[in-house]
């Protein structure tokens, strides 16, 4: 109990510090004082500072927090539902779906009108996830669905490859740059949409808390404890795909967080109770994403996450297993 409180306190403080740090760091010098003035006394603030804060750095910090938390929650849920520690938001074809949407928009020249590239990514993610979810409702066994999700992913990736092969150099570059992922694409006006999608996804996951806590044993065990397994599974998968789909749409495919953060949270909190794990992974994910976002924009986000994150997580895993934590 004490351990849990300390972990939550430390993580919360860490997220807060990194959030503010994100606001004051960047190529242009804007001090903490300038930021405070821009927030609390906008009328006397330098318009230039306010512009940098609200149009660049605040959306960037918000994107990092929401993306980190969403991907982590999505990863945790998928690892729990499939009882597989290798699961991440990609197994349901979410990222391949988003890639397909973007590839259609950028490479094949489909306009997608007002929705733009973001909308194309979101539509692709939602469409492919729906296909997998329809499959999900037909299977009693969760591991069959895992295979189905991976197969759909291969299929969609093959379509993307066909588009890539036929694309010209210019549009190919735009596509590749989207594929790097990043928190700088979110605009101030888009924050409410992103926030709403995340809140909806979180809500779907939260109402299935009992299912998440018992399904680790087996579907039958969960039924024996009064859980409507099939309905809960669809709710959780839908929530997870909305979380990961929204993030992929707004930030591009962000690797690593979804699969690694749940393991980090297990090690920190030493529990399998999702009442603690869900807020725990959210904070861990937000912390890591903010940290990675502090690196110069010239280095791709996914590269930063993997180069900095993998050694840290490996260290935590190795140390944890030496202390007798089962993995």
């Amino acid at each position, binding site marked *: 109990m004490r351990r849990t409180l300390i972990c939550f306190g430390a993580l919360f403080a860490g997220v807060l510090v990194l959030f503010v740090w994100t606001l004051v760091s960047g190529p242009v010098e804007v001090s903490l004082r300038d930021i405070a003035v821009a927030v609390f006394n906008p009328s006397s603030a330098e318009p230039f500072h306010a512009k940098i804060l609200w149009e660049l750095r605040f959306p960037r910090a918000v994107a990092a927090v929401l993306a980190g938390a969403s991907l982590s929650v999505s990863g945790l849920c998928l690892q729990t539902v499939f009882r597989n520690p290798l699961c991440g938001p990609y197994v349901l074809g979410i990222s391949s779906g988003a890639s397909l949407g973007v590839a259609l928009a950028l490479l094949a020249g489909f306009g997608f009108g007002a929705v733009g590239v973001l909308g194309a990514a979101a539509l692709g993610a939602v469409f492919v996830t729906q296909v997998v979810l329809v499959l999900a409702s037909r299977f009693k066994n969760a591991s069959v669905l895992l295979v189905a999700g991976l197969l759909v992913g291969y299929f969609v990736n093959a379509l993307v490859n066909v588009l890539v092969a036929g694309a010209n150099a210019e549009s190919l570059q735009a596509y590749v740059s989207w594929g790097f992922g990043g928190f700088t694409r979110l605009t101030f006006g888009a924050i409410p949409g992103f926030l709403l999608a995340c809140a909806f996804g979180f809500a779907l996951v939260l109402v299935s808390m*009992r299912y998440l806590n018992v399904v*680790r*044993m*087996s579907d039958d065990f969960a039924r024996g404890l*009064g*859980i*409507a397994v099939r309905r809960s599974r669809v709710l959780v998968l839908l929530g997870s795909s909305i979380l990961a789909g929204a993030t992929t749409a707004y930030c591009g495919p962000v690797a690593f967080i979804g699969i690694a953060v749940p393991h980090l949270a297990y090690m920190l909190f030493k*529990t*399998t109770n999702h*009442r603690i794990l869900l807020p725990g992974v959210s904070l861990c994910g937000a912390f890591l994403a903010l940290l990675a976002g502090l690196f110069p924009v010239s280095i791709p986000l996914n590269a930063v996450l993997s180069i900095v994150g993998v050694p840290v997580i490996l260290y935590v895993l190795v140390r944890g297993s030496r202390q007798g934590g089962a993995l």
Partner: protein
Amino acid sequence: MSALLQAKDLQFGYAVGMPFSQAFDFALESGEVVALMGENGCGKSTLLKTFAGMLRPIAGSVAIEGRDVHDRDLGYTMQELSKKVALMRMNMVPPDRMTVREFVSLGRTPYAGIFDGRSAEDEKAIDASMNLLDVQGYAARPVSELSDGERTRVYLAEAIAQSVDVLLLDEPNAFLDIPRSHALFRTLRALAAQRGMGIMVSTHSVEYALKYADRIMVINGGVVKVAAASNAEAEGILDWARAD
């Protein structure tokens, strides 16, 4: 004594054309322990699943305290049912990283609200069942690291924390040594006597069945027979188990 669980014209199995048994009636009384016996593959586990409401019968019905366990509209909802009956099985894969206490606490899931919290009353039930099965000594250890015998007792503690009226156990002494098996059956007897539970336990041991059960049910050649334990040998329902 009054009937807790009642089976009427029951035919159970997985495929309609291939029931495990002819139709039979059976009533499990409050406060009694019934041993379920039969050869491998005769359908003991299938019958227990049918009694637990997890598998629809091919024909007939199963009711607990007068309400059907398979009909979700007129009978129990899943959650109501899970407060009435628990099926403890040994073939579960122990979950990674889950501690003994966390696992026993899962037994309170049917009583939890939407966010799966545990009340003081829940914690009391968890402590009581851990004490009863003598597992509080390793409350903080991961279930996956326990020996099979320890795990059996943890699984039973979880089922008891569920506070059900009908407790079904599928070969609980498969992994237990002789003293632990005796202790397990004594615990079952005590639960039946003190809490008025109706307990049905499948086992391959004629010795334990004769010593600890009130009645013995045998599935043999598609026929279900029940006799008082004191009378089982005289009635010849255990003849199939003889070596000669």
